[in-house]
């Protein structure tokens, strides 16, 4: 049976959450403004109306509280899905995430499971004030015991959120906020079909000149760059990491063995980040295939600047193409 629907990332998440709640009465949604308002991005729109206030909880305004109580609810057998309003507000909850959520399974030799999902809208490009445009995902990827996911399209939004909720491990689920309602990224999804394995990276465009690896909002930048490069006679292979911890670098190694060049793309600052990790691992695995050093195109090692400067801060198509040229000139 197929059931095709054309959905934006935001609508796909909403429908994915709805399906997960229908399938399992233990799934709860909790966060600030997720009920009546449907979340500040409307991702949980209509869910409280249909599932009630005990399944969709408008919580007090406290992130440590949201995550800490989700831990307790999980101990009690629930599967909480927490929404953090903007990535910059996750830090009051950092202690609960790193000290309890990530470690309880290990500390109890597997007796306690932590099926908690934390949804985090992240990334820039929306012209916002401070703390609304950051990319802190590397900080979480660095914490053992957590899985970190970042979606880039509606298909993964729909299936990924359901798979994350089904997982018995705690998952940080990073969502590219500036693409939530992008009509251009609307995708036809067979919502009754079968998903592919989420914890794997994926080649989203094949090419031969160089490889660009990206995740979340940067995947679109990479694809746009690849389209532009084609006009210049260059063929870029684009890989969407999808899962940031654990990293599935197999397809990246394979691609680098083919193209000999890698550009790692991300909005986050570069020092001690996911792109650092990718560069290290690729040079270790593909040393003899590399025609040029792995290059990184990232945000700068500064706090996120005032939004009037974000067009300079955020890696764009030109910066990716410039890196490709530098790689080719090696």
């Amino acid at each position, binding site marked *: 049976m197929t059931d095709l629907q054309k959905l934006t990332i935001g609508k796909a998440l909403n429908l994915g959450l709805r399906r997960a709640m229908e399938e399992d009465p233990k799934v709860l949604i909790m966060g*600030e*403004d997720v*009920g*009546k*308002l*449907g979340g*500040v991005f409307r991702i949980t729109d209509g869910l409280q109306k249909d599932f009630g206030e005990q399944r969709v909880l*408008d*919580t*007090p*305004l*406290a992130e*440590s*509280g949201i995550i800490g109580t989700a831990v307790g609810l999980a101990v009690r057998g629930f599967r909480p899905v927490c929404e953090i309003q903007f990535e*910059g*507000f996750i*830090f*009051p909850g950092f202690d609960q995430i790193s000290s309890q959520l990530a470690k309880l399974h290990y500390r109890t030799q597997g007796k306690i499971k932590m099926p908690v999902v934390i949804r985090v809208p992240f990334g820039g490009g929306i*012209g*916002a*004030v*401070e*703390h609304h445009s950051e990319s802190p995902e590397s900080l979480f990827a660095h914490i053992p015991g957590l899985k970190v996911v970042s979606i880039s399209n509606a298909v993964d939004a729909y299936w990924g959120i359901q798979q994350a909720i089904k997982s018995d491990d705690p998952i940080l689920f990073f969502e590219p906020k500036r693409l939530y309602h992008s009509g251009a990224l609307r995708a036809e999804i067979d919502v009754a079909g079968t998903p592919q394995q989420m914890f794997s990276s994926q080649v989203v465009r094949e090419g031969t000149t160089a490889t660009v690896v990206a995740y979340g909002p940067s995947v679109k930048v990479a694809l746009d760059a690849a389209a532009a490069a084609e006009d210049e006679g260059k063929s870029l292979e684009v890989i969407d990491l999808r899962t940031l911890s654990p990293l599935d670098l197999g397809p990246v190694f394979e691609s680098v063995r083919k193209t000999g060049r890698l550009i790692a793309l991300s909005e986050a600052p570069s*020092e001690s980040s996911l792109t650092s990790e990718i560069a290290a691992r690729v040079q270790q695995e593909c040393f003899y295939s590399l025609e040029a050093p792995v290059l990184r195109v990232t945000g*700068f*090692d*500064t*706090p996120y*600047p*005032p*939004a*009037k*400067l974000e067009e*300079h*801060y955020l890696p764009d198509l*030109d*910066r990716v193409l*410039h890196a490709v040229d530098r790689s080719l000139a090696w």
Partner: protein
Amino acid sequence: MPSEQWTHPEPGDGPAAVAAQPSPEQVIAGLRATSEGGAELTQLLTPEGERVPSPQFDKYVDDVDDEALRGLYRDMVLVRRADREANAMQRQGQLGIWVPLLGQEAAQIGSGRALKKNDMAFPSYREHGVAYARGVDMKDLLGIFRCTDHSGWDYQGTGFHPYTIVIGNQVLNAAGYAMGQKFEGKVGDDDGEATICYFGDGATSQGDVHEGFVWAAVYDAPLVFFCQNNQWAISEPTERQSRLPLYQRARGYGFPGIRVDGNDVLACLAVSRWALDECRHGNGPVLIEAFTYRMDAHTTTDDPSRYRLSDELEEWKLKDPIERVRAFLARKGGADHDFFDQVQAEADAFAADLREYTFNMPEPPPERIFSNVYAEGNPVLEAQREEFLSYLDGFVSAGEH
């Protein structure tokens, strides 16, 4: 409806009283009980503009003669006019976002005007009126909302800390600052220093705010916690944050809490002066809950029609903080039509000036991204900056810019 108010059972009240749980309706009634002017609400000026005597607080506004009152009126009108102008500019695409203060003018002007030169204020992000009262040029606030800057005024000179967007963070920062005032021996008499810290009703749920209460209490910090309870934290009403009226929480931390009519500028001035005085003399901290109402959206990206009823807004419009001062002044002959017209004209000019400034605000150059990340040099960043600037130069020389 003070009779419906649920008060916390005392240990001596017996097992039945302790076991009794309030119904959700009782909780809400309790949280709102004093909104109609119950015994616990400090009010000096009714919504109709009548002066109510207060044995405890009258002395704190003894000096407020007609001229001073006209000054408070003018402050509120100017601040509201600036707020409306900024809101309109956001709608016209000139500001990225705006955080309206509509309805909260009395809470901000009353408390802001109670501060002395050496006091320090720690705002959250809606305190445009306090900024104005501290002498911050309101133009300097607009960079934040036009997204050219993260902050931008003289913090020491004005005694007005940068805005804080992460809910609750500033409360601990204020506690630390006030501890510093105490450690330096700046409290103890009429000339003592004090700190005031602003936050919302939603913020009271954050750990940082609780920790701020604890710190200020155990170090006897000269800190006035000024909670503007505007009834909503985006879409969540106060009953999503508390069972008790917020001012009553202070007791659990061991310092006084008081609820003031946040739409009454005279009462806000008096209560803030009293609380700051307590702090100056070393008797702090104090919690003030200014009971008020956010008459506009949470921010320009919010849609309040999704969560609140227009009845509520209509009800609060009758308690408008500016109208009651106007009525009071008019009734006692403290101001005539000319005065009100003149203030309006001044407010329009004030707004026009802000508008012109905003439209001409210079955009920061790209190198600003890299400036002031560290107080001392950072070679990695320096290299990144050089590389990026030469990359940008490449476009210019290639004629692509």
